């Protein structure tokens, strides 16, 4: 080593790193079969239809569930008389306080209408949340944890 070496010139002439013999020549042969075998598969992007149907099914279940939970209890339970009609009338007159049935029914109707309205709003919100293809792909990368790669591959600057 001479007394003074200029790093700039020295580095340009001598790369301090070496590679094994024929490394670059062999690299191509090593990578080719590996690449042809590996084809990245995306469940979500390749099964968009399935995903759509699944989402619709989930939505229907959700709406069904909401309706079921908000319906007044026992509305559809068939009534069975366990006493004669005259006895029932007597009991009704004596035990049940005077109730304005029409008012109660209209209140119940209003409540049902409000709930149905709320369900529709919720449904609309869910519709707005439906992702397009690009968003599904973005989400997929995000869930895989390589969002930075996604941005690189798609040349998106933040």
């Amino acid at each position, binding site marked *: *080593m001479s007394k003074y070496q200029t790093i700039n010139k020295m*580095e340009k002439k001598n790369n*301090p790193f070496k590679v094994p013999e024929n490394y670059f020549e062999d690299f191509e042969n090593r990578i080719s079969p590996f*690449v042809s075998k590996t084809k990245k598969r995306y469940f979500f992007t390749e099964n968009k239809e399935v995903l759509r149907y699944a989402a619709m099914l989930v939505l229907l279940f959700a709406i069904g569930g909401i309706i079921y939970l908000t319906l007044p209890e026992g509305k559809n339970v068939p009534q069975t008389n366990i006493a004669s009609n005259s006895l029932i009338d007597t009991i009704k007159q004596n035990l049940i306080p005077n109730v304005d049935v029409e008012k109660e029914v209209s209140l119940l109707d209003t409540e049902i209408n409000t709930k149905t309205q709320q369900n529709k709003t919720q449904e609309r919100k869910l519709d707005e949340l439906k992702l397009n293809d690009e968003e599904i792909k973005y989400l997929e990368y995000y869930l895989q944890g390589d969002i930075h790669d996604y941005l690189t591959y798609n040349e998106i600057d933040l």
Partner: protein
Amino acid sequence: MTDKEIFELLSDQRTRERGFSALVKELKEKVYWQIRRMVLSHEDADDLLQDVFVKVYQNIENFNRDSNLSTWVYRIAFNHTLNFLKVQKRKSILKFSNLEDSMLENLKADNLFDSSEIEYKFQKALLVLPKKQRAVFNLRYYDELPFSDIARIMDVSESSLKSSYHFATKKIQESLLNDDNIKFEFIN
């Protein structure tokens, strides 16, 4: 073969394998050295190089021709290498060790590295730099890429790159300042 020709081959399913082969042929060495200078070890560089080309192959449909194909590949290599170093750093923290120290230790024992004192000291000085600054320095100093290309690879502005390179050279000079055997002459 030009970037455009390679891309055309890659875009067509029937010629994709041929295009990929041409791409590997064209860029393997440049990308390898870009990675090797960051990770120092040949084994790691080899693994990363394979990963990079596999990623390129798998994501070629996402390349939207905003930049050159080669710049896009360099960019993937750059990100992949930084991610690798990030993981290595985390691992070394868990082992209560210092990544840069262990890299230097491995370098000393590496028979694929010119073990002269001056080269070793230079690599040691380079390891003082933050990862991104080291990458800027390598791309400019070794590969002599114009700042505009480096800016596209690293997705930063040219002016910040220039100052980053300036600081990098300054830091290297400072770390080697006490060594009488070394004189500096950096390109700007």
